[in-house]
Structure formats: structure tokens, C-alpha cells
């Protein structure tokens, strides 16, 4: 038995939304995700794992928490997915809160553990299945859910209004020209070689990063552009929420922006 000790942390997105759950809702969502959305791949992974623990040393959470076995990737799967399966999907809201904490806050889907697994089990994928369940139940950390909500309306993660995006880049162009004579941040240049797709924060809190990219593009002589319309943000927090419906829409917007601008490459930032 794995001993699980965690310092209590409150998060309204998890605590308040978990209060609204019903047993029928929980069972229905788990059944839908495990039997309709994830069946074949999930079963293979779950049945192949021999609990050897070789994945443990790959996990920075496990290492950071002094090799606490409850932070090892295999333990995270055991405490979430296997728990649901073992209990025939009949789990309570407190369990959902624990699944949410583990899948959102104790794994960042880096996939390093999959490299360590002798069977190549995609453990990170299993954590995304847990996130999907929590996401459909609405039990998601507040900050992450807010970013997912932003994607639903703006297709960017930081609630950037369409006018702010363009206006910001226009004044950044002024700043750019303090360093580079006649520098440009060209919007909607159809047929450019490259569409630069910034992180949402470059349009809001860390605009100096966008200026830096503009400097590189100008000095390197890259034929580049950015869309003035939605689809410019390279991030997709809906994926992390487990909101695959919004995730798909955001990705589609992103690629269709590139195709609308007739660019040949997308360069994204991080």
C-alpha cells in the first residue's frame, strides 16, 4: 500500500466544483472516457504495466520530493486510473479531488517517464486521461480553467481582446524602431515565409519578448508575419484542462490562420 501524505491545498476550481458532483455524474463521465474515448490504448497500457517502478527516477516530482514513492509515475497511475477501475468507476467526490491534484499538479505531462518504461507505456497519456475525466467533471484548478475559458472565447489563453493584440504590436513596433531603423512587425502579410505565433503572454505581460523576436526577424531578414485575427496564440491550455473540444478548435484556428496567410512555416515561442 502506498502511503500518501499531502499538505492540504485549497483551490476553488477543485474544491467548490467537487461539491456539485453526484455519484451518477462521476460514474457516467468515467465510464464515457474509459470505455468510449480511450478504450483500446488505455487497456493495453494498464494491462502491460508490471509495476516495476523504473519510471520513478524519470520524474522530477519524485526526485524533488525525496523519492517519496507516492510521487512516482506508476504510483500516480495507481492512485488515479487504477483506483477508478478497481472501484468500478464508483468513486466519490473526494477521490476526484485527489485525482485532480495528482494529474494537474503533480505531473506536467513531460513524458520523460515513458522513456524510462521498459514497455514504452505512455504514462503521461494516462495522466491526460485522468485530466480529461476531471475536466469533464469541471474539477480543474481555477487558474488553468480560467485559461481554458479564455481559449473558448478568444482562442488565446490570456483573455487578450482582438484590439489589444493589434494595438500592442503597433506600439511595440515603435519601440522596435528605437533599436532597428525602419523595423517592422507586419500583420497579415499574405504569402510571407513564416508566421510567428507567440505565447499569449508576449501580447500581455511579457511584451519585451515579442519585441526581441521582432528584432531577430528584422535583423535576420526573415519574411515574416503574424495574424491580426484569432489563431495567433501558439498555446493551448484547453489541452491541459482536458477540454478536448476547445483544444481541437484552438488547434484548427491556429493552422487555418497559417493557411489563410499562405505562409510556409509556423514558428512558435515558449
Amino acid at each position, binding site marked *: 500500500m502506498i502511503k500518501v501524505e499531502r499538505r492540504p491545498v485549497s483551490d476553488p476550481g477543485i474544491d467548490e466544483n467537487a461539491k456539485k458532483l453526484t455519484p451518477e455524474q462521476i460514474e457516467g463521465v468515467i465510464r464515457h472516457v474509459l470505455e468510449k474515448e480511450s478504450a483500446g490504448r488505455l487497456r493495453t497500457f494498464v494491462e502491460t504495466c508490471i509495476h516495476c517502478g523504473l519510471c520513478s527516477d524519470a520524474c522530477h516530482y519524485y526526485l524533488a520530493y525525496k523519492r517519496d514513492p507516492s510521487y512516482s509515475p506508476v504510483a500516480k497511475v495507481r492512485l488515479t486510473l487504477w483506483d477508478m477501475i478497481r472501484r468500478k468507476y464508483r468513486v466519490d467526490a473526494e477521490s476526484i479531488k485527489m485525482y485532480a491534484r495528482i494529474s494537474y499538479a503533480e505531473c506536467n505531462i513531460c513524458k520523460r517517464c515513458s522513456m524510462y518504461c521498459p514497455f514504452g507505456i505512455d504514462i503521461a497519456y494516462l495522466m491526460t486521461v485522468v485530466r480529461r475525466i476531471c475536466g469533464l467533471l469541471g474539477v480543474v484548478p481555477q487558474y488553468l480553467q480560467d485559461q481554458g475559458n479564455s481559449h473558448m472565447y478568444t482562442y488565446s489563453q490570456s483573455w487578450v481582446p482582438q484590439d489589444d493584440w493589434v494595438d500592442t504590436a503597433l506600439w511595440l513596433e515603435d519601440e522596435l524602431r528605437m533599436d532597428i531603423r525602419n523595423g517592422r512587425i507586419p500583420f497579415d502579410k499574405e*504569402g510571407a515565409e513564416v508566421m510567428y505565433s507567440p505565447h499569449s503572454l508576449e501580447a500581455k505581460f511579457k511584451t519585451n519578448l515579442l519585441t526581441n523576436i521582432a528584432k531577430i526577424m528584422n535583423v535576420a531578414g526573415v519574411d515574416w508575419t503574424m495574424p491580426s485575427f484569432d489563431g495567433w496564440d501558439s498555446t493551448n491550455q484547453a489541452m491541459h484542462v482536458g477540454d478536448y473540444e476547445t483544444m481541437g478548435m484552438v488547434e484548427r484556428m491556429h493552422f487555418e490562420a497559417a493557411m489563410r496567410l499562405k505562409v510556409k512555416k509556423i514558428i512558435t515561442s515558449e
Partner: protein
Amino acid sequence: MLTDDWDWDIQDRVITDIDEWKRRYPIVQECSVSDDGERIAAIVETAPQKATVCINGNPWETEYEKIWSLKFSPDSRAVCSVLRNYEWTLAVDNVLWTEPYDFVWNITISPDGKNMAATVKKENAHTVAQNGRTWGISFPEARDLAMSPDGKRVATRVKTKRLASLDIFGFAENILTVAADEKAWDRNFLSIWGIAFSFDSSRVAAGVRLDKTVFTIAVDGNTWDATFAGIWEPLFHPRTHDVAAPVKTPRGWTLAMNGKTVWERCFTQVWHQRYSTDGEKITAVIAPGFGKWTVAVDGSPWTRTFSDAVLYPAFSPDHQRVAALVKEKNRWTVAVDGTPWPVDFDMIWEAVFSPDSSHIAVKAERNGLYMIVLDGKPDTHAYEALWNPIFSPDGEKLLIRCIENGKYCRKVVKVNDIA
């Protein structure tokens, strides 16, 4: 928009020397060309915070602090957002809308060029301005703008309530809807996108999300009875009020009309549906499997699939042929009725049918130069810049708008002389 009296007998005409513009101004931004090919314009900057629009070599008399989103209306007027004295407004051939705004974007113009609208920011709120008149209602936020075919109505996606930072519970109460004609729909949704007007401009539809996995279409705020696990943008029938949209069912994606699936087959993906002009047929981009893209007409897919992308299928005017842009192994070409042209390009633009449906012309790029491709045959002439070709009404000639040797020209060439 070419007028009926546009002279198709004038052949080559050099309109202006773009290289001379570049010698004259420190910054010449990207060029826009009018549909009739007679005007070319660019935002030019003479000094910091001094920008104007140069048309056919002649700058506007006024200089602005900033200009952006320059385009030509279908009736060949230059339209853009301009900033003067820290206030934005719309300029049409250098005539300004009278009202100033904090920002102007989503400039939208009716097919006849007579009506213009834009989303605008004023007093920390968003609204819409139509032909220079601002709506009497505003919203915490507005995104995108759709205009009715007659140009008299516009609609935008709005947020009806201003939320505090991180207010996920307020968002869950549904704060998003469509605003049209200075009025928001009575009903809000979790999410909303893809605004479309009916052919007669009387109805507005959009895709809406009712819950995490419940999607449908709303027409004038009223939802279909049926719901689906996913839905893409709606499209009105060109002659009725029927609405078609790709929907996700337990069997996969298919096409639905007014809430009922109309294609027997389901696919891995369906989107970008488009009707023939008589409304008798409908085509869409579909994926019969992962990494396989093609076109379906009335639910029947082409046999040939393409690995990278398929874009914008379009019917010929006689509704008998369908052309789409296809990409395979990072090379673009046109596929007509399922058969790709035997040539490929670095990039390709929208396929244009001749009025009699017998020819297809496109703009294509290869090795940094642009050319007209007619029925799969690249023209031997390549240009530094090129805009989409336009067929003459009899289909025998093409208007080519191009830059060669640094000069913008409009040319009329006989279709038979190409390639």
C-alpha cells in the same frame, strides 16, 4: 468588382513604378490592389509617426500617426484604420468617419462596396460602427464581425458581462452570445463561434456550446432540438433558410441540416462545407481517416486522398465540377473532381472558375516567383508579385494584376495565349 463597362480590350498597362515608391519613402508596407486592377495602394511612412496611403504613386494629402488594415472595397475605394491625435477612425479614400474611437478593427465591406462596418472600442467597451454610425449599445468585449449579403446587417460575438479575473464561476453561468442589429440574443451560451447570415440577410446562425460535451446550432438565438458531441460553423442554404453544419456523432463526423444528419457516411473529420450556387449540392473537406484528407460531394468522398491538407472546395458555376487546393508531401496543387493537376507548387491560392466553368485559373508560387496556372499548365511568365486572376465575362480573357521589374501592371491576356 469589375463594372460592366470595364474595358477588356486594353492589354498591358503600367499603372505605377513601385520601385520608385521605395526610393521615395523609407517604409513601403505591403501592397493592396483593387479588384478592377486599376489601383494599387500601400501604407507608406515618411518619418516616425507620419504615415499615409500611397495610391498609384500619389499619396493622400493627410498624414496620420499610424495606419493599419489597408484594403480596397469591391468598388475600388481604399479603406483603412487611421490614428490621428491619439484617436482611431476609419478612412475611405481619405474621407474619415466623423466619430473617433480608441481602436477600429475587423473592417468589413459589403459585396457591392456600399456598406462598411467595423468593431470599435470606445470608453473601455466594445461595439460596432456601421457606415460611420456607432451602435447605441456596447459590450465588455466583441470579437469578429459578419456582414449580411445585403450589407445592412452585421453581427459579432460578444461577452455580455464583465468578469473579475479568474472568475470561473461567472463564466460557467454563460456570458457569451451574438449581437446583431444593436441587440444581443436573449440567450447566452458557454461558447459561440462561426456567425453566418442567410441568403436574404434575414437570419443569423452560429455554432454554440451548451455544456462541456453538448453542442448545437443557434439561429437567431434559438437552438436546434438536436445536440451533438461537436459542431463546426453553420452555413445557410443559398436559397432557403435551411442550415447545414458538420456535426460529431457517435459514428464520427458527418453533415447535418436543421439538426438532422443528411449524409449516410461518417468520417474522421468534416468541415468547410460549401453549397453549389443553386443549392442542389453540397461539398466539404473530409478526412476518411487520420492523415488522409479529401473532398466529399453530397456525402460521397473522392477516391484520392491527400496526406497534408485540403482547402476550400468550390463548385464551378454550372455546379458540375468541384475544385480544391490540396497539399501532399509539402507541395501544393489543385485537384478537380478528385484528380490532382500533374504539377505542384510551393504555395497556391484559391481556384477561380471561368464563368462557363470550362477553365480554372490560380495564382501559384514557385521558387519565390509567382505565376498564373491555367487548367494545370503554368504560364511561362513569372512575376515578382501577383494577385488572383479574374476571368472576363465571356471567359476568353484573364485580368492579371502583377508586379514585374518593380512596376505594377494590369494585363489582359487571352486564355488561349497562356502556357
